[in-house]
C-alpha cells in the first residue's frame, strides 16, 4: 500500500518537472534559436510584395482564376485553399463523388485550355492531401502554357524558359519530385510583363 501511494506521488512530481522541461523550455529554446538562426523560416516563410504587404507564404498555395495566371491544383481545404481547414477530399478510388468531381475538373481544364495536350497531368485534375499544395508539376505548368501566353501576350518560348527557370529539381536528383511553385511562377510572369513594357526600369525582384 505504501509503495503504491509513493508511485502516485512520483507520477505527479514527474509529470510536473517533465512538463516544464519538455512542454515549455524545449519549445522555447527552439523558438529562440530559430528566431536568430533562420528568422524567415521560423516566421512562416512569408512572401511580401514591393510595398511590404504579405501576399502569401511558401507554406500555402492560393487560388488563381484569371486566364493570365497559372492555376493551382483543385483544393478540398474548406472552400478552397483555406489554411485553417487543411485536408484532402478523403474520397476513395471507387467513390461516385470522386469520379464526378474529377470529371468536372477535366471538363473545366479542357474548356480553359483548348490548345493543351490530349492527356491531363494527374496532379492538375486531383485534389492534394493538404488542400494547400503550393506547387504543380512542370507538366501541369506546361499544360497551361498556351492559355497564359494568349492572355498575357507573352511568347510560348519566353514562358517555357520561365517554367524551366522556376522548376525546383529533386535534391541529389532523387529526393522528391520536380515541381513549380505557382505563386512564384505567377510573380515571375508579372515581372516579365513589366520588363517587356519598361525594360530600363526592370528589376528582377523575384527569383
Amino acid at each position: 500500500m505504501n509503495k503504491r501511494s509513493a508511485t502516485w506521488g512520483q507520477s505527479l512530481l514527474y509529470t510536473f518537472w517533465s512538463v516544464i522541461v519538455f512542454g515549455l523550455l524545449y519549445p522555447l529554446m527552439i523558438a529562440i534559436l530559430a528566431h536568430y538562426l533562420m528568422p524567415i523560416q521560423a516566421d512562416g516563410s512569408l512572401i511580401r510584395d514591393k510595398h511590404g504587404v504579405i501576399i502569401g507564404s511558401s507554406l500555402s498555395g492560393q487560388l488563381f482564376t484569371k486566364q493570365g495566371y497559372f492555376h493551382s491544383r483543385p483544393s478540398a481545404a474548406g472552400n478552397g485553399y483555406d489554411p485553417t481547414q487543411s485536408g484532402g477530399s478523403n474520397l476513395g478510388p471507387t467513390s461516385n463523388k470522386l469520379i464526378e468531381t474529377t470529371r468536372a475538373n477535366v471538363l473545366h481544364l479542357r474548356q480553359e485550355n483548348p490548345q493543351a495536350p490530349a492527356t491531363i497531368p494527374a496532379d492538375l485534375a486531383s485534389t492534394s492531401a493538404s488542400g494547400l499544395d503550393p506547387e504543380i508539376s512542370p507538366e501541369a505548368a506546361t499544360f497551361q502554357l498556351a492559355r497564359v501566353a494568349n492572355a498575357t501576350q507573352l511568347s510560348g518560348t519566353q514562358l517555357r524558359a520561365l517554367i524551366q527557370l522556376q522548376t525546383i529539381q529533386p535534391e541529389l536528383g532523387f529526393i522528391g519530385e520536380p515541381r513549380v511553385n505557382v505563386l512564384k511562377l505567377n510573380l515571375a510572369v508579372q515581372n516579365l510583363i513589366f520588363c517587356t513594357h519598361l525594360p530600363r526600369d526592370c528589376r528582377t525582384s523575384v527569383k
Partner: protein
Amino acid sequence: MSWTGWLQAGFVLLIIILATKPLGSYIAAVFAGERNVLSKLLRPIEHGCYRLCRIDPQREMLWQEYGGAVLIFSLVGCGYLFALLLTQAYLPLNPQHASNFAPDLAWNTAVSFTTNTNWQFYSGETAMSQLSQMIGLAWHNFVSAATGIAIAIAMIRGITRRGIATLGNFWVDLTRALLYLLLPLSLIGALALCWQGVPQNFHRYTQITTYEHGSQLLPQGPIASQEIIKLLGTNGGGYVNANSASPSENPTPLSNLIEMVSMFLIGAALTYTYGRYARDQRQGWAIFVAMAILFVAGFASVYAAEAAGNPIVHQLGVAGGNMEGKEVRFGLPGSALFATMTTDTSCGAVNAMHDSFTPLGGLVLLLNMQLGEVVFGGVGSGLYGILLFVILTVFIAGLMVGRTPEYLGKKIERREVQYAILAALVVPIFALLPTAIAAVLPSALNTLGNAGPHGFSEILYAYSSGVNNNGSAFGGLGPNLWWNLSLSVVMLVGRFGIIVPALALAGSLANKRVVPASVGTFETCSPIFVLLLIGVILIVGALTFFPADALGPIVEQLLMQKGTTW
C-alpha cells in the same frame, strides 16, 4: 514506377542501416548507466530529477512493480491532458481563442495521446491552443515514446539477464530515454525541420491578402519542436489537420526525408541494443533483417499500386499514377514510402491521405498495422512486439522438432507461451469485434465518408489503427459519441493489453536458469529462423484478418478494375 523512386527508398534504408550500430550501442550504454558523450551535461539534470521526484535510482523493480509504475504514470498523464483540454480556453497562449473541448472528445484525445496512438478527431489548427499543443500533446509525445522505450529495455533485460529477477527501475529508464535519447535528437531535428521551413514561433495566425485579393489565415505556432518528436517518438499527431501533408509541417522533400528517417531511427537502433544485451549481435541483426524484408515488400506493393493508378480516372483522360490526396513535392514514391513507414511503425503521421490510396495500396497499409506494427515498429513497442513473435516462433519451431523450445538459453514453457498468445490475441479481437459492431450500427455508419466496400474499409482501418496505437486514419469518419468512446477503449486495450503480458513474460524469463546450448539447440540467428519468424508474423496476422480484408480493400480492387463505383 521510376528508378529515382526506388533510389529514394534505398537511400532511406541505407541511412537506417548506417545509423543502427552507433545509435544502438549508444542506447545500450545509456541504459546500462555507463558514461557517454552527454553524461557531463545531462547527469546533473538526471540526478536533479531523481531528487525532486523522490526516486531511488538504485532500486530495481520486479515486473509487477515496473508495470504498476507504467500504469499509474500513464493514468496521471491521461487525466492531466483530459483536464487541460477541458479548460484550455481559460489558459494563456491561446491567440486564436480555441474553445474548451467537449468531454467525450477530450477523453478520446487524452487516451489517444497517452497510448502513443495520436488518433485525431479534431483539427489542430482551429481546436487547439498553442499551450495545449506544447504542454499537452508534445509533452505526451515525449513521455509516451519514452515509456515505450523503457518497456522495451525492461523486456530485453528480462530475456537476457541471468539470475536476477528484477527488470530495472521504470523511472530511471524513463528519464534516460527522455534526456539522453529523445531530447538531443529532437533538438537537432527540430532545427533541421525549421531550416527547411517549418515555423517555430508564438505569433497569432498571419493574415494574408492573396494575389487575387482573397484572404487567408496562415497557422503559426511552435510547430517544428512538436513535429520532430511526433516522428521520432512514432506518435503521429499533427499540429494541423492535414498532418505531415501540410507544407507547414513538411515543406520540402528534404524535410520529408528527415521525417521518414526519424520514424525508423530508434526502432531500428533498438535491435542492435538488443544484440548488445544478448552478448550476440547476430540475434539483433536477425530481427533487423526480418523487419527490413517486410518493409521492402510493403513499399514495393504500395508503390506499384499507386503508380498503376485508378483506371476509372484514366478513362476520363487523366494520365499517370494516383495523385488524389497526394502532394506534388513528394509525388508517388515519397508518398508511398512515407505511408509504408508510418504503418510499419506505430507512427500514424501521414503525408498523403490514405483514404484516397488505391484499394491495393490501402490494403498493404492496413496489413502493416494488422501484423502488429513490428516492422521496426513504434519506439520500444516495435521491439517488444516482435520479441513476442520471436517467442512464438521458437515455440512453434520447438514443436516441429519435438524438443523443449529455448531462447537464448532459457526454456520457453507453458507460462511464457500463454503470455505471448494473450498479447497476440488482443490485436485481432479488439480490431475485429468493434468493426463487426460498427458495421451494423447506424450511428457509426451515418458518419462514413464513403459508401460500398470502401466504407467498410474505413471502419476496419479505424479499429486496426486504434488497437495498434497507430493513429492514422482513412479520414472519412466523422466524430461522435460512439467513435470517441469505442476507439478510446480499443486504444487502451491495445496499449496496455500488450504491455502487461510483455512485462509478465519478461519477469518470468528473468529468473530462469540458463541451460548451455547443445547441438540440438535451434539457432535463432540463422536465415531459416528469419524466414520462420516472417512466416509466423504473416500467418498470425494475415490469416486472422484475411476474411475482413477481403470484404473491404480486396473486393474493392476487383470492382475498381471493372469500373464499379458507389
